[in-house]
């Protein structure tokens, strides 16, 4: 509400009121519209607009004013630019700044209402009356210049607004507004062929408010509660119409992409009680992001519950109502809650004022893709930024505090696909991956039929067939793994390699079940003979041509070494006959059932006598080493084969002991016979 005295409010309704008008103007300059900051005076001086002195204004009094019309056409969620149409004798230049004051005589003195500054934008000379008709607009006109981004990102909506106003040489008359602290990460208006006024409209829309100019300051404001009550005295006796009540507003809907992508906030209680009154905001660039539903709350605080009558009213003149004022009209028993959105004041041999308020567009959607809010719903977003060559496709779903997003981003430098699952159905060719960079596939699991590549590296490769020149992986699992040539693992787990070299700090072969048998086998064919080594639980067997020739087994209490030759002679040798075998006891087989072809030994003493015993060193020993004692097998030495091994390559200790045993026995017999002879 414009500030006027109580006397003014009373007098404006009175019969015989006296009115006055004063138009002041600063003539003969033009605005340099590049940024509106400077004006050019008639003598060519360039000065800042704010440097225009009060004394530089010229007053036109009522005697020279033929008509004045102040037009304020506004709407919720929009900017409003006030228009001043007037006809005077004076000749002004386009761009002149004009002020208008309306006066009403109160108690003998005129009390003036200041309607602010306007910029002359159009003029027309009336030859018949020798007057000039002008159209002037308030300072919002300064914003009708091409938009230019002057922000440093990231920034806030407040700063975006402040910067665009500064660019237009306008001020911001509020310190905060709904959603003023929203983060803006990039220029939302990039690539759009729009004016700064359009940007102001977009910003105003997401505040839930409306905006207008107060002098040089931009004001964002919601409907303004006042205590103004108007009655029959303020209105003419014709053209006073009230239509149905609009509201209460109880839903806001954001729409984009031809209405296929909508989100909404609702007051369900109000809807149930009053039905839906919805405000639809369509294709606002500020609401392109996935965070658009964050704007709902503060907008809804402004608009939820707003109710006003749709009307068209011809008044005798009120003049002190301001844009967005909420006021009440009482006519008889009827009360009407009103909101000033459109106002036309005519001053021409009297005063008339017409007020009208329309409903704003409302659209109830068929909710194909949306639910109550973005907080727990799926959403989709397409952004095409032609000027920087970027396309972004995003779909997402909010579930509680978690958000699932799938996105495809295309830029001139890269294409990125982000999703929990990426499904490619059909023949897929990936080419030109051999540049200087590295092609990396990250994933805990890759499952496929066939992968063919020069090199595949991964933590785990699982597939029916994995083939390649080099296959590297922490774990490779497959029915068949093959390089197609020298290495393969078949479906039964058989590994084939032309050459295999297993190298490792620790190499372990493990059989996973507890069954018996010989699970580990080493095979080699040599000159037509199969040589095989088998190893199993506690046993190691060696086969030649299918015959076991040696085995070593370790039980829970003892260990056994078995060897057999073709002559069925069991052999044991240590270090090729040059080593020592040390044990506590050495037992030679002597049981009857293991022996045959018995033959008593006679003349053992002859064998003893035929064998020469030497002290000697083995050839690999030092000469100083302790000498061994024994016979020597050789043509030059006396020995008997009865006490050598079957191969005649060593001593048969059991036979030697037995020969000595028999020799001692023969000697004892001879001794006893001699003793008998002596005793006779």
């Amino acid at each position, binding site marked *: 509400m414009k500030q006027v005295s109580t006397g003014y409010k009373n007098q404006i309704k009175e*019969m015989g009121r006296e009115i006055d008008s004063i138009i002041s103007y600063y003539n003969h300059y033009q605005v340099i519209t590049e940024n509106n900051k400077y004006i050019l005076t008639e003598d060519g001086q360039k000065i800042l607009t704010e440097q225009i002195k009060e004394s530089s204004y010229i007053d036109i009094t009522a005697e020279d004013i033929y008509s004045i019309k102040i037009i304020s056409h506004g709407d919720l969620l929009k900017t409003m630019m006030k228009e001043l149409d007037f006809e005077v004798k004076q000749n002004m230049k386009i761009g002149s700044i004009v002020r208008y004051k309306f006066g009403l005589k109160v108690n003998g003195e005129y009390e003036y209402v200041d309607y602010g500054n306007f910029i002359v934008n159009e003029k027309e000379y009336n030859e018949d009356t020798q007057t000039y008709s002008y159209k002037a607009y308030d300072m919002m006109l300064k914003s009708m210049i091409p938009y230019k981004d002057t922000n440093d990102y990231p920034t806030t909506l407040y700063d975006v607004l402040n910067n665009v106003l500064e660019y237009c040489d306008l001020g911001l008359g509020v310190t905060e507004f709904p959603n003023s602290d929203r983060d803006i990460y990039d220029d939302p208006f990039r690539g759009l062929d729009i004016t700064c006024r359009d940007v102001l409209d977009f910003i105003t829309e997401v505040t839930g408010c409306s905006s207008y100019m107060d002098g040089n300051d931009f004001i964002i404001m919601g409907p303004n509660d006042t205590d103004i009550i108007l009655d029959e005295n303020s209105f003419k006796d014709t053209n*006073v119409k009230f239509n149905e009540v609009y509201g209460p507003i109880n839903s806001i809907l954001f729409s984009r992409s031809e209405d296929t992508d909508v989100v909404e906030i609702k007051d369900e209680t109000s809807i149930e009680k009053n039905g839906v009154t919805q405000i639809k905001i369509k294709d606002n660039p500020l609401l392109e992001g996935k965070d658009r539903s964050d704007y709902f709350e503060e907008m809804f605080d402004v608009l939820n519950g707003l109710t006003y009558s749709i009307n068209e009213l011809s008044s005798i003149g009120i003049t002190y109502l301001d844009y967005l004022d909420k006021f009440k009209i009482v006519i008889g028993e009827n009360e009407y809650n009103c909101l000033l959105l459109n106002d036309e004041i005519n001053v021409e*041999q009297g005063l008339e004022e017409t007020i009208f308020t329309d409903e704003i567009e409302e659209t109830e959607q068929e909710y194909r893709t949306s639910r109550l809010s973005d907080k727990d719903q799926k959403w989709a977003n397409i952004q095409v930024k032609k000027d920087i060559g970027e396309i972004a496709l995003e779909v997402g779903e909010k579930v509680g505090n978690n958000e699932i997003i799938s996105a495809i981003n295309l830029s001139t430098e890269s294409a990125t696909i982000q999703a929990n699952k990426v499904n490619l159905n059909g023949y897929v060719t990936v080419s030109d991956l051999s540049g200087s960079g590295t092609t990396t596939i990250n994933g805990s699991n890759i499952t496929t039929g066939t992968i063919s590549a020069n090199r595949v590296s991964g933590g785990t490769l699982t597939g029916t067939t994995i083939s390649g020149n080099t296959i590297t992986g922490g774990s490779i699992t497959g029915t068949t793994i093959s390089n197609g040539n020298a290495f393969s693992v078949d479906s039964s787990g058989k590994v084939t390699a032309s050459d295999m070299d297993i190298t490792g700090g620790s190499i372990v072969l493990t059989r996973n079940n507890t069954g018996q048998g010989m699970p580990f086998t080493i095979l080699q064919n040599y000159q037509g003979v199969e040589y095989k080594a088998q190893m199993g639980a506690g046993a190691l067997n060696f086969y030649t041509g299918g015959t076991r020739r040696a085995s070593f087994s370790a039980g829970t209490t003892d260990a056994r070494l078995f060897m057999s030759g073709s002559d069925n002679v069991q052999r044991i040798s240590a270090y090729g006959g040059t080593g020592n075998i040390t044990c506590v006891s050495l037992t030679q087989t002597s049981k009857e059932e293991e022996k045959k072809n018995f033959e008593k030994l006679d003349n053992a003493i002859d064998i003893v006598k035929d064998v020469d015993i030497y002290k000697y060193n083995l050839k690999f020993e030092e000469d100083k080493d302790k000498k061994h004692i024994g016979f020597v097998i050789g043509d030059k030495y006396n020995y008997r084969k009865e006490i050598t091994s079957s191969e005649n390559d060593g001593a048969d200790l059991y036979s030697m002991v037995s020969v000595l045993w028999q020799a001692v026995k023969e000697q004892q017999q001879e001794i006893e016979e001699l003793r008998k002879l002596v005793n006779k």
Partner: protein
Amino acid sequence: MYIDKNSLIINGINMGQYLTEVEYNYPKLWGGDSGRNLKGDQTGTFLGVYPKLKLTFRELTQNELELIAPILDSPTQNVTYYDPNKKAMTTMSTYTGDWATTNKNIFSNVTDANESFQISFIARSRRT
């Protein structure tokens, strides 16, 4: 109301000697917004009082008529009169309508035969 013979001056000429009667009118001018309000009361913007002086000239001689006619034919005049509201001599800019005089003895060569006529001087601006 007392008005002496020197209390009406138009374009610097004292008119009292040429007149037989002056009617002082003080009409109120109402704005185009005048009418009834929704309550039924008459309302309107009062634009002001625009004084109108209706002068009745006596029969004028040729010389007198030749002196007066240029004043009457000019689009505007400066009229000084005694205003009882202001209680002072007041000057206002006026305009006039058409004027006419009748000479019934045109064929008798009688020069002073012009008959009396009337003309109104209307204030261009409201009385301040």
